């Protein structure tokens, strides 16, 4: 076994999965609050462009990430206004968000096509990165990979250990009861949508800042939708989102290596794998008993006070 190849494959799986981790967590926090946001794809691409434009202008990585999250949050606030204030249908509003985001990014990003963002330096973790094979595979990554895992930990802690997290889950499980108890359903959901938008924006920016330091129109290529499927796959638990994202990342990397190793099938068959695996995962999860309990009770339902 070629250990050098193995460690670089694991390394690239983590790189391929990180956008899905961020976007999946962004969808998760909204869904735990009862908000179904199908606009993740649009939020991601706008974040991708915002992060890229900031990096090209010469700002450091931290500023690029902040701008990407800001762009995601701002676009998500349109969704929040429509769904929470104007009682718009959330499914259709999410789709509109995706269309609008893709179009806006293509329109504003046309001037950036062909430019390259500066390379992001890896953070070698002292000592651990020196371990043979494992060190290169797991402990010499760009800071965003570590941040994605840290974010999952924070969200897990927030949802299960903090009082505010408990309120958020109550709003997601049964908004009528939460409202009766005096919690602000709209306020909680607004904050969840803003945070989710920011996370999706960061996930998108990982594509342009680390994966390929370029911006191309429509480059999210369905990752926002896979992130939504991941949340179902993870039965709405943060750490399972990471596990799921790494599984999907592995599939896409295996597909790339299959092409490199000269697997004699048309590349399109291999490119179908992530989508087919997603469908398979959705079926397995949905058919397992007890999933109906896992989904937040008020997910995707419109909240109106006067009823």
């Amino acid at each position: 076994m070629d250990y050098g190849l193995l460690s670089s494959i694991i390394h690239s799986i983590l790189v391929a999965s990180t956008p899905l981790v961020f976007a999946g967590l962004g969808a998760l926090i909204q869904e735990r609050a009862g908000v179904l946001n199908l606009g993740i794809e649009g939020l991601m691409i706008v974040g991708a462009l915002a992060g890229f434009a900031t990096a090209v202008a010469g700002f450091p990585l931290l500023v690029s990430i902040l701008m990407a999250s800001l762009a995601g949050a701002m676009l998500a606030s349109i969704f929040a206004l429509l769904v929470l204030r104007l009682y718009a249908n959330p499914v259709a509003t999410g789709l509109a968000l995706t269309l609008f985001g893709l179009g806006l990014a293509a329109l504003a990003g046309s001037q950036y096509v062909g430019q390259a963002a500066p390379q992001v330096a890896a953070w070698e973790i002292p000592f651990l990165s020196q371990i043979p094979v494992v060190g290169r595979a797991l402990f010499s990554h760009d800071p965003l990979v570590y941040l994605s895992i840290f974010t999952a930990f924070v969200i897990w802690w927030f949802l299960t250990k903090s009082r505010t997290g408990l309120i958020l889950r109550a709003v997601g499980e049964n908004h009528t009861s939460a409202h009766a108890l005096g919690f602000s359903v709209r306020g909680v959901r607004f904050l969840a949508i803003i945070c989710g938008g920011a996370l999706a924006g960061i996930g998108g920016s990982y594509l342009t800042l680390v994966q390929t330091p370029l911006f191309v129109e429509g480059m999210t290529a369905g990752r926002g939708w896979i992130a939504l499927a991941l949340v179902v796959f993870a039965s709405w638990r943060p750490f399972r989102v990471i596990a799921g994202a790494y599984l999907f990342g592995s599939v896409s990397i295996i597909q790339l290596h299959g092409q490199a190793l000269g697997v004699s099938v048309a590349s399109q068959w291999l490119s179908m794998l992530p989508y087919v695996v997603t469908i398979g995962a959705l079926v397995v999860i949905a058919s397992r008993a007890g999933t109906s309990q896992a989904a937040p009770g008020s997910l995707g339902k419109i909240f109106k006070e006067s009823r």
Partner: protein
Amino acid sequence: MIMIEARAVTRWYHEWIAVFIALLLTAATVSVLLASLGLDPISSLQRIFIRPLNSVYGVSELLAKATPLITIGVALALGFRAGVWNIGAEGQLVMGGLCGGAVALAFWNIDGFWVMPLILLGGTLGGLAWGAIPAFLKVRFNANEILVSLMLTYVAILLLSVMVHGPLRDPTGFNFPESRLFHDAATLPKLFSAGRGHLGFVFALIFAVLGTWVVKRWHLGFEMRVTGLSTSAAKFAGYNRDRTVWMALLIGGGMSGFAGVVEVTGNIGQLVPNISPSYGFTAIIVAFLARLHPLAVIPAGLLVALSYLAGEAAQLSLGIPAASTQVFQGLLLFFLLGTSLLVNYRIRFGRVA
């Protein structure tokens, strides 16, 4: 203090006033966007939205673009009424084009009145099969139809690419990823001497009328609507939720497949890797613009088709990327959804009583 309160009575024209306001707001926002790009809004709007229609050619192109939008929009309007979210019409369209195109190539250079109906049937069945997958997975395993139908769209596009690069490639085409050109018996007749408007548009109009009939007069349409409005009411009435899911996705799949085969036989004339500029997704906007009324899908489809022409005109005469079409379409959908509040609620200015 601005307040919203439920209307005591809603009248039919409230819906259309809301649509009109949404169109006005979209036009205003687009004008602001154009002005921010340093263009004169009025003359630019005139140039991209009015001038493309100044000729028979332009009108013909408009009808060609409206054909798939209306055909799919009618099917989606029926499905959305039933609360079944078929977001994968694009994939069903691609499968329709692929299967219908494969039939056309199988009977290449064979004439006969039966060739064209067979091709249309092949395409419809292809889309139907692609719509049946999410229906089956939803009914049998309760898998989310939104995500399954969407993932299948990516699979369908890749499948078309495999076929056009491989088995269906033109043997005399210097390895270009294109099929042979369909022969005359496998091509839908054009409507005008100029442009690409074809017979498919007439089919689309027929579908819109049929769809209205299903909604208004057929019990199935009523059953689907009740299921969409209230699951508990549907259960109480003894309506079968599974049947509604099947019907919505089969109608959606079959008609999207039909739109796909009509697109390749009427408009493109061969199979290419990319047969649709997202008609399947844009048809969702058409259905909402029509407020899910099948007959209203006709003007809605024409208007959204105009946005495609406007995008091309904007690219040619104003130097704006064609993707700005999507910005326009996204804005329109935002405003439509936002103003639909006005149908059941009214806004009151004044103090809290």
